[in-house]
């Protein structure tokens, strides 16, 4: 039971990490591997606001979301500036990872930030005989709230409809007179804001450090590949499955734990090349 609780809380963090990337990549076809760097910025900003400056956590995380949204805006400009081909996007992403990580080290110093300590999130909650740390519970709640919000945005709003249309057929959508550039911008900003929130919430257990751009990217990647193209529910299910698998395999085969994730990904890919939620082409 404890494993399940651990897995779900990890899954919530994974969802927050992965959903922005899933939208950008699946819906817009933009390969922004620097998504993890945005997460890192969110974590550092939250650390500064909530831990060093003593602002309430909610304010700090909103601050992180705003700053990351602005960063997303800047990134979108950069990605707009290059042709939308894999070569350029790969190089741009890797460059941003190097530069942002080094910049973060410059600004926030080389020492990793310990997991943020928020007094009202200390202690654990007993749920069905299992101790769930309150901070994990908060992460899960925020994770599911964001999932619901994203799902509503995708399902009920005009932008969401455009995203879905773009997902199905970018050429056709352009033909219909929808301004995909605007949609890309909106998704970039929204995805980055979510990454910022993910960084802030994830910081409650993981802190902030300059290794995160790569670490987070890889976790998010697996979530996206398993979850399938740009679908919020698919990403959520994938994140939970991966969280549970990770908790389980760490428990049973610690030597192979991180490999298990990738094996799951390979397995899903072999059986369903389009991911769990994927439609067949």
């Amino acid at each position, binding site marked *: 039971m404890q494993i399940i609780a651990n897995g779900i809380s990890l899954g919530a963090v994974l969802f927050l990490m992965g959903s922005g990337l899933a939208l950008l990549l699946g819906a817009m076809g933009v390969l922004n591997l620097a998504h993890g760097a945005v997460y890192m910025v969110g974590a550092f900003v939250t650390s500064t606001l909530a831990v060093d400056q003593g602002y309430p956590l909610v304010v700090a995380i909103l601050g992180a979301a705003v700053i990351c949204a602005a960063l997303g805006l800047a990134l979108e400009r950069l990605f707009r500036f290059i042709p939308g081909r894999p070569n350029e996007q790969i190089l741009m992403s*890797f460059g941003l990872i190097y530069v942002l990580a080094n910049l973060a080290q410059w600004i926030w110093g080389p020492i990793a930030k310990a997991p943020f300590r928020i007094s009202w999130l200390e202690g654990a909650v007993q749920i069905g005989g299992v101790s769930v740390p309150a901070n994990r519970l908060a992460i899960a709640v925020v994770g599911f709230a964001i999932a619901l919000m994203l799902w509503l945005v995708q399902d009920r709003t005009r932008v969401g409809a455009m995203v879905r249309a773009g997902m199905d057929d970018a050429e056709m959508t352009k033909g219909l007179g929808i301004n995909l550039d605007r949609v890309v911008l909106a998704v970039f900003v929204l995805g980055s804001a979510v990454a910022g929130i993910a960084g802030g919430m994830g910081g409650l257990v993981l802190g902030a450090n300059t290794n995160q751009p*790569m670490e987070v990217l890889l976790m998010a990647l697996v979530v996206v590949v398993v979850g399938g193209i740009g679908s919020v529910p698919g990403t959520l299910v994938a994140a939970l499955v991966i969280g549970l698998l990770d908790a389980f395999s760490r428990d049973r085969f610690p030597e192979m734990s991180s490999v298990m994730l*990738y094996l799951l990904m390979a397995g899903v890919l072999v059986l369903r090349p389009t991911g769990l939620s994927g439609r067949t082409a």
Partner: protein
Amino acid sequence: MTTVFTQLRRKVPVLVLLIGALELPFLLSSQQESLLTRALIFAMMAASLDLAYGQAGLYSLGHAALAGVGGYTAWLLMVRYGHESFWYLIVAAALASALASLVFALVSLRARGLYFILVTLALGQMVSNLAQQWDFLKTAQAEAVTGIYIPSLGLGEDWHSGTLYQFVLVLTALGLFTIQRIIGSPLGLAFRGSRDNEVRMEALGYDVWRYRVVAIVLSGTLSGVCGALFAFQSGLISPTNIGVATSGLLVLMAIIGGSGTRYGAFIGGILVTLLQFYANQWSMERAPMIIGGLFIVTALLLRFRPKVAGALRSLTRGRVSHAVA
């Protein structure tokens, strides 16, 4: 006789360059030889990546892992099982990486487009994580495996940085020659065809999937050899050497020198390896910024490459030739 001369005219510059490079140890310190050897190995790795990346259009971000399989195989056989023959180790490394590339290809080719890139990235990281966490692949639980050295060729050779450099140079020339041959063959043509227009290739009777598998396996096998050479030269190999960061650098090398051209990836490999070293001499704290900046600037300027390349070519040769040898 005319053919002899035309052939010579094309080959002489390459030959002069090769012989010049062979004599470099007379001018360099052993540290510079060592750095150049490293550059050659990475350049060769980038050139073999480009066989899949540039020629066949398979944007792999997990290539370093395939080189890593070669490197770790050489380490395993040498340090754990005591094999000391260069030839044995290099063949084993090639076979192991060929097998790994095959699995890599079979899984990653299930995905297409951007997803292929993501999957190669994740598969590459999986290998790196395996090397990081699996006790079987560690020496004394250290973070990098060590204890490997340059094995014997069985020719009574005397290894030091100069001879190693020359030996690697000769191997690199052979490897580059092999790659040229593949590029110039109908197989290479089929790679480029699959890259440019999959649907048409299929309609011309080509099983594109099979050619892609072949491209990845050839490219991975050559890299595996480079991985083993890297381990011999450094005396170690670490999970980072085979992880995403290295794969990304290999892609930068290939692109910066001219992905899909004959010598581009190789030249890029030498440039980036040297730059990586000297960036750290210029600024220890901000070296990552320099490398990252190089990535971004290359991304921004990439679209102007055809123009620049065209201008250069018309400067040097006076005409544009699209012939493939």
